[in-house]
């Protein structure tokens, strides 16, 4: 069996076995923790599509987490609790906002792109703060979890498996996209834009579509996140959250299939571990992250599979 196949079997077995295992040792807290990690891994995977494969360093990806979460929260506020409808709106609204932000920001590059994506997301953050009806700065409680019919998101274990399935689906989807014709154009434009233009590719529409896809998937993660925390705050759209997502992608290994998942697990598990020791955990985490980026240039995925091209 190929190394990558073994890797995925191991990952799936461990994650699938986790709920019964931690229930057996009476530590259900870990179901919650890993569920949160998997939701953020979905967001990180979507960011990896544009950042890792597209070279679009978006410093505002938390915007879509926020839009997804607020879509669910606001619909629930007005009594619409059908999960399929809620998630569809979350994905659609995120895609639309990504289309608007992308249409403007992808015309720029480098530091300007970073700053513009950050600025747009800060605008949404302050919009969230100013929405008094929906809790403003304090945020809002989710009136009811998304109703999906055959699964109950109120059940911690069922919700866990929904997140696991969706995370695997998103990782696979991104993998298929980046290996497709579309993905090749996206990666080629990152590798050498003037060469792409010379052979007849206009990178802009491809980048914009990738940006919209990434936003849509980010919106899905946001919808899950709202159900996970049962509470929605503008903080979900803060630049700190955007930075965390970027860090997961970079730490896990840019432009690799498993990277965002590995990065999300590594960052959040380590954060959890440090929190147990000291309340000044960021002082330790920060320098360690810097060191990890210096020493693992291709991230954790690069350490695991050296031959993965």
């Amino acid at each position: 069996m190929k190394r990558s196949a073994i890797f995925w079997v191991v990952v799936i077995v461990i994650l699938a076995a986790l709920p019964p295992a931690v229930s057996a040792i009476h530590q259900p807290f870990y179901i919650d923790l890993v569920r949160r990690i998997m939701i953020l891994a979905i967001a990180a995977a979507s960011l990896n599509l544009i950042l890792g494969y597209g070279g679009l360093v978006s410093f505002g990806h938390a915007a879509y987490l926020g839009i997804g979460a607020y879509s669910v929260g606001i619909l629930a506020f007005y009594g619409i609790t059908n999960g399929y409808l809620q998630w569809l709106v979350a994905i659609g609204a995120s895609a639309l906002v990504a289309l608007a932000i992308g249409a403007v920001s992808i015309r720029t590059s480098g530091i300007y792109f970073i700053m513009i994506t950050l600025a747009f997301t800060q605008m949404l953050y302050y919009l969230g703060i100013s929405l008094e009806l929906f809790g403003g700065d304090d945020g809002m409680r989710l009136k009811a979890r998304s109703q999906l019919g055959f699964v109950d998101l109120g059940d911690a274990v069922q919700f866990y498996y929904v997140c696991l399935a969706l995370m695997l689906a998103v990782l696979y989807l991104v993998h298929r996209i980046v290996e497709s014709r579309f993905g090749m154009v996206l990666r080629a434009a990152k590798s050498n834009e003037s060469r792409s233009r010379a052979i007849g590719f206009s990178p802009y529409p491809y980048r914009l579509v990738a940006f919209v896809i990434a936003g849509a998937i980010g919106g899905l993660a946001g919808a899950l996140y709202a159900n996970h925390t049962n509470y929605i705050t503008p903080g979900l759209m803060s630049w700190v959250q955007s930075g965390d997502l970027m860090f997961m992608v970079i730490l896990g290994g840019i432009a690799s299939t498993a990277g965002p998942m590995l990065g999300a697990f590594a960052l959040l598990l380590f954060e959890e571990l440090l929190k147990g020791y000291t309340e000044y955990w960021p002082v330790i985490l920060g320098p360690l992250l810097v060191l990890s980026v210096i020493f693992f240039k291709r991230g954790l995925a690069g350490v695991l599979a050296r031959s993965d091209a």
Partner: protein
Amino acid sequence: MLEVRQLVKSFGALRATDGIDLAVREGETHAIIGPNGAGKTTFISQLAGNLRPDAGRIFFGGEDVTALSAPKRARKGLARSFQITSIYAEFTALDNVALAVQAHAGHSFRFWQPARREAALREPARGILDEVGLGGRATVHAANLSHGEQRQLEVAMALATRPRLLLLDEPMAGMGPEESQRMIEFLGRLKARHTMILVEHDMDAVFRLADRISVLVYGRLIATGEPESIRAHPEVRAAYLGTD
């Protein structure tokens, strides 16, 4: 095939292209020579659409393409190679050429099927790699190819777009004598099937390959003609060949 009328491009006070008129005929290999800084690459970049001229018009196949972007011109059949090697370094040689094939195989908004398994992209790409002599290096990452091989890959990518006109900007740049010889022979074979504009410093190559030659000095074409007449042209000898 290609017609340039009164093309002008300035950078500040420098007129890098100073009222160039040029007509390239179907099937010919047209060399552009000139000393360093004569504006050869600036001229090529305007033909390819990477630079906008300040004035003048460019017609390609009878159509005014002056306002078209580089990708649009490429899709119309204008392919360029770069003086400074421009390839996808982290992709294999075969990927590089397959991407060029893909660029001319309809739109690429296809999100699911793995592109590297599409025979429609890989087979033509393989054929072109064989043609340029890189058949045995298909799976090597472009970054790990030798300089000469990268130059060959550069030409292979231009060819893969099935161009009506090839713009080759110093294809022999930085090559050793043996590699140059092979490239000249290869371009000699190519010449039978393609219309080419060849910018080159290597006079041996130019006089062996070109049907006609234009001489560019300080942004102006001072002469255009058959190789023999260019060789004999007094102004050309003074401006360029004499100092070679």
